[in-house]
């Protein structure tokens, strides 16, 4: 027990800086994932076969490719091709675009839950298609898929750990834990604290989304 606290207090700077990097990674990626995911979901449900197909290709590509491979493509691959991409851009863009595919699918199911009737009604009232999306579909679709997005965000927090140990090598929580472990050789204690850091984030996300779910429940 003593050793547990010793590792924590002696290496507090590493753990806190790693935790902070992980938080920022998750926050930036989440913004990318939500905005790109919404855009792709819009393509997926647009009244045009070609737009649907473009959205479909995006989803199938990013959903089925391993995140580690995506990170290598976007970092080492692009650098080799002459694009001077920074670790932060490569890491957040990969995680964000990867998660966006899942978000898009979740939103799509939310859109289909809205019901054709409402969309037809709005269109026949003279609203343009973009306005129907913004005023009728998105507010309802987002509410129905809050729990699904919650589990995707939790998965994203866990996936963010891949960035630190891949080639991108951002000093996130897991990467810092490996540094501490290499110094102390106290694997049980070090990994315990890294795990605790990720659990704090996932538990916080669970509670946040549980609150959002009850706050924005659609009363039917």
């Amino acid at each position, binding site marked *: 027990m003593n050793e547990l606290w010793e590792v924590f207090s002696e290496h507090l700077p590493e753990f806190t800086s790693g935790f902070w990097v992980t938080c920022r990674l998750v926050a930036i990626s989440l913004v990318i994932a939500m905005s790109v995911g919404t855009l792709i979901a819009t393509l997926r449900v647009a009244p045009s076969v070609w737009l649907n197909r473009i959205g479909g290709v995006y989803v199938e590509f990013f959903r089925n*490719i391993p*995140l580690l491979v995506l990170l*290598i493509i976007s970092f080492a*691959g*692009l650098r080799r*091709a002459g694009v001077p991409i920074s670790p932060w851009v490569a890491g957040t863009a990969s995680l964000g675009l990867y998660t966006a595919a899942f978000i898009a699918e979740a939103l*799509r199911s939310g859109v289909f839950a809205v019901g054709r009737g409402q969309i037809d009604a709005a269109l026949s009232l003279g609203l343009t298609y973009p306005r129907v999306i913004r005023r009728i579909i998105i507010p309802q679709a987002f509410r129905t898929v809050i729990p699904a997005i919650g589990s995707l965000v939790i998965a994203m927090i866990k996936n963010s*750990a891949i960035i630190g140990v891949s080639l991108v090598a951002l000093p996130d929580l897991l990467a810092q834990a490996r540094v501490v472990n290499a110094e102390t050789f106290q694997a049980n204690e070090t*990994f315990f604290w890294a795990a605790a850091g990720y659990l704090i984030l996932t538990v916080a996300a669970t509670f946040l989304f549980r609150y959002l779910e009850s706050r924005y429940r659609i009363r039917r």
Partner: protein
Amino acid sequence: MTYLFDPSNWEWLVSGNNFRFLLEGFSINLQIAAVAMVISLALGLTLALLRISKLPLISVPAGIWIDVWRNLPVILVILYIWVVMPKSWASTYEDVVPGFASEALQSGLVLAGLIALVLYNSAVLAEIMRSGILSLERGQSDAAYALGLTYLQAMRRVILPQGLRRMVPATVSQLITLNKDTTLVSIIAIQEVVRHGRILSTSGVFFGEVQAPVLQVFIAIGLMFIAVNLLLSRLSRRLEIRERKRTAIKARRVTGVEDQVAAETDLVTGR
């Protein structure tokens, strides 16, 4: 764009046995996924049954075990097991692993990767199975007990055949996730497709006369995963539709994590 599609950057694919080298690596990933899946299914079912036990002394520890492993990043579990696994386990594994297994799988490191993947996936599958079993109406088990079946008989004959059928799509989605997660064992130096890709793109000269750019090599690797995973998701949709036709009921879907969301969506819309 011109760099990406420049034929001279793709020449490596057809020169020497580069492509075969990648495929060999990829087959290691598939083998690891298959072995981990089979063990996880068995262990997951056990965990699920312990979790729904009526004795708190059994169900509470099982629940904690499942929640802990399910909520940790799988890469953290892989690194942790790799660091703490006793050397003797690795050498025991190397002794007992059958001779026909490919060379990469003979290494003791594979055991650490397998243990980590099984810990994570068995916990996720346990949760999927639990909700599959609980999604059955209570009447099913009540009727089975009323007919005089014992617990084990009721499970085997009535509950599991129905409950497990409902979780087929979620399980296939988990298999897709597991497939992607096998690339993570490259971090602990198991010689699979990511390692092969790195070798190719840093020392292409050994395998052919032309350089293999890392971008093109890893796009090729990504496409391999996409092909296999698309095949798997098509298959699960087939199964689901056939099942729905056979039972003529709208199947209640079982939720899990990440990919399950997508699998569900496809079922809702029937696309």
